[in-house]
């Protein structure tokens, strides 16, 4: 009951803030523009504009952008009480840490999942607006859009929101999650690149990448044939499945650690 109320209140509070809609708008425009670029590439003989590969490419680029700009959602859900100095009022009510942290985290996750819907929306708009000649489009495949969202973005949203949320909750400052997001992207992309190229361990490299960027841009774009790019779905299997399991597990561990370490009393 209390978890539900904390969840509801947080969701409504952030949904009423302009900032939340700004994140959505930025991702929507970005997805639209990247898809426009794919359309141009398709005209020049690359994969079809609405191929699973093109959709996945747009998705990872936009996910990357989301990790950086969308941090505020989780950061605010975790640290607004301290920032507004309402923490002495909240922390003296009889709510368990599980209800408090759980309600706030779930609200941030749902908000981020909704914000990320801007990506398929932007892609679809770019593909559906007039001016895209039939020759560069394959058949419309809802599964391609769905798998980009469910396989790539949702697990990413879970893991990254968990990390951003925990950093802010344990430090009492939303700014720490911005820093964490930047470090996560920089550290992981350098780390994954080094593992793949220097250690020659591509399987491990793909696991290290929280948003599927390495898989799609580093592997699929170089090794798949044009026909494969146009037809194969990036499905929840093989290395992608392993990667998603690893990052969901990391997210769960981070949340458990936060629940353990978080204290109302200082």
């Amino acid at each position, binding site marked *: 009951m209390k978890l539900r109320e*904390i969840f509801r209140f947080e969701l409504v*509070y952030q949904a009423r803030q302009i900032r939340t809609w700004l994140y959505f708008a930025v991702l929507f425009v970005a997805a639209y523009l990247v898809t426009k670029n794919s359309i141009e590439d398709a005209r020049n003989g690359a994969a079809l504009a609405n191929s699973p590969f093109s959709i996945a490419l747009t998705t990872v680029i936009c996910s990357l952008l989301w990790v950086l700009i969308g941090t505020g959602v989780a950061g605010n859900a975790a640290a607004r009480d301290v920032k507004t100095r*309402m923490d*002495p*009022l909240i*922390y*003296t009510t*009889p709510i368990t840490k599980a209800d408090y942290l759980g309600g706030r985290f779930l609200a941030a996750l749902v908000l981020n999942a909704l914000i990320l819907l801007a990506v398929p929306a932007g892609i679809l708009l770019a593909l559906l607006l007039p001016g895209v000649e039939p020759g560069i489009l394959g058949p419309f495949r809802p599964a391609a859009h769905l798998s980009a969202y469910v396989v790539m973005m949702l697990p990413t949203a879970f893991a990254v929101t968990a990390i951003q949320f925990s950093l802010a909750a344990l430090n009492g400052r939303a700014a720490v999650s911005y820093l964490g997001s930047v470090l996560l992207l920089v550290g992981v992309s350098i780390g994954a690149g080094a593992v793949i190229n220097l250690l020659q361990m591509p399987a491990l490299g793909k696991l290290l990448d929280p948003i599927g960027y390495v898989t799609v841009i580093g592997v699929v774009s170089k090794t798949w044939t044009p026909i494969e790019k146009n037809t194969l779905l990036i499905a929840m299997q093989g290395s992608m499945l392993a990667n998603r399991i690893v990052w969901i597990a990391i997210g769960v561990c981070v949340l458990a650690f936060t629940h353990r370490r978080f204290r*109302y009393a*200082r």
Partner: protein
Amino acid sequence: MELLIRGVSKTYASGVQALKDVTLTIPAGMYGLLGPNGAGKSTLMRILATLLEADSGSVTFAGIDVLTQKDDVRKTLGYLPQEFGVYPKVSAESLLAHFAVLKGVTGRRARNEVVESLLRKTNLWDVRRQKLGGYSGGMRQRFGVAVALLGNPALMIVDEPTAGLDPAERVRFLNLLSELGENSVVLLSTHIVEDVSELCTRMAIIDKGEILLEAEPQRAVKDLQGRIWRRVISTDALPALEREHTVISTKLLAGRTVVHVYGDASPGPGFEPVEPDLEDVYFSTMTRAARS
């Protein structure tokens, strides 16, 4: 129903010892904790409100160990911190309803009733739909009172509540509190003597982390009967007077200085006996502690 504080000490990481072996017995009713700024009042209040860990000692309330059973304390606790903020972009009504659920008022009907009655009591009903970001300091303080009163707390911790209020707001606030004091333990910290004299049936004086006096205000005033002497002097005569007598307080009156001196017998010509009040209790206690 008593709040028993036994030997509580607290030293901050900075090395400042904020509380030294504090022991107090606080019965139901209004209890005043009086002391200057920096005396350790807020530290004690934050420990009692489960927000700060004590280094040693014990605190029990109605059979609950306050230092370890924090969840149980929070079920019966109302806490008004000295400093707090609120979410700026939400109305008083919806934030208070949110707090009501967190405090366990879960039925919609009961919640609406308690929210309405508290908003009326704190005189915020007419502005209930305004965003809290637009509230004045006094309005925000009253909102904090409404939050603290939710769920009829048996233990009410109120930290320097009147500091930022104008005189009319202060009276309204003290009335609200005295209503609650009838069947709860209400601990009020303040540096304003009038807050205690107007409200409290028992009090303690704290300075530099130590309890200097635990008393009933009226009895403490009575005990000073015949021991407080007043004299009006020019300001430059004060240092000489301070060397000879136990000056407990000085006040300016139309450019001259009124001194109160503590003494079992008349300190000499020019002094007249005065009817002591709680301020004399406070200042004589502080002066004696400073000298010993």
